[in-house]
């Protein structure tokens, strides 16, 4: 069974440029999560989807971050414009339908973003 797929794996951009990350969850998983992980810290939830609906986006910096999950499968996370402090690993995870507190999350390898 294929795991969570993320692309690109690495991205280097200059500040003020836009960037987008793509995630394909495990087939049949209705819940999709985007996390940001800074060096030496635990993952921080940015947004959680149940199918197409964003059910928790309270930690998403909406002035520059946006996300979408059209058709309830793939998802894209965008940053525009990027700032130096956005340098981090962006992780995507998926699980069976339901709150993450109940279900095992399966994580992708992440996208390492460097903003210069």
């Amino acid at each position, binding site marked *: 069974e294929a795991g*969570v797929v993320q692309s690109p794996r690495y991205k280097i951009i200059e500040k003020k440029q836009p960037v987008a990350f793509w995630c394909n969850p495990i087939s049949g998983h209705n819940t999709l*999560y985007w996390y940001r992980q800074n060096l*030496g*810290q*635990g*993952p*921080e*939830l940015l947004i*959680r989807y149940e199918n197409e609906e964003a059910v*928790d986006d*309270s*930690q998403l910096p909406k002035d520059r971050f946006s996300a979408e999950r059209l058709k309830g499968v793939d998802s894209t996370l965008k940053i525009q414009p990027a700032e130096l402090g956005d340098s981090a690993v962006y*992780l995507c*995870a998926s699980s069976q339908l339901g*709150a*993450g*507190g*109940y279900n*095992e*999350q*399966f*994580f*992708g*390898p*992440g996208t390492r973003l460097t903003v210069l």
Partner: protein
Amino acid sequence: LAKTTQPISMDSYEGQEVNITCSHNNIATNDYITWYQQFPSQGPRFIIQGYKTKVTNEVASLFIPADRKSSTLSLPRVSLSDTAVYYCLVAIYNQGGKLIFGQGTELSVKP
């Protein structure tokens, strides 16, 4: 602001039992406590999940006291390949059930 707290690092030797504790207050009453393992350049990987008392699987045990203000991950007879960062994940009740990872415990297993 409610959060989880873990030791930053731990050292152990091969064959020993390792216990890592996560402190958490005001967790959601009906939510599980989950532990993940992360190796460098990889996403976290599920280890074990529990709601109360004790849960055991083929790789670890999870102990949750009655007050649910902490949980302990127990790794029996660790090996060098268990060197990794371990995170607890809880849903914090007074933050609307928000999912919060601990800051992680870096476990180093020595020969």
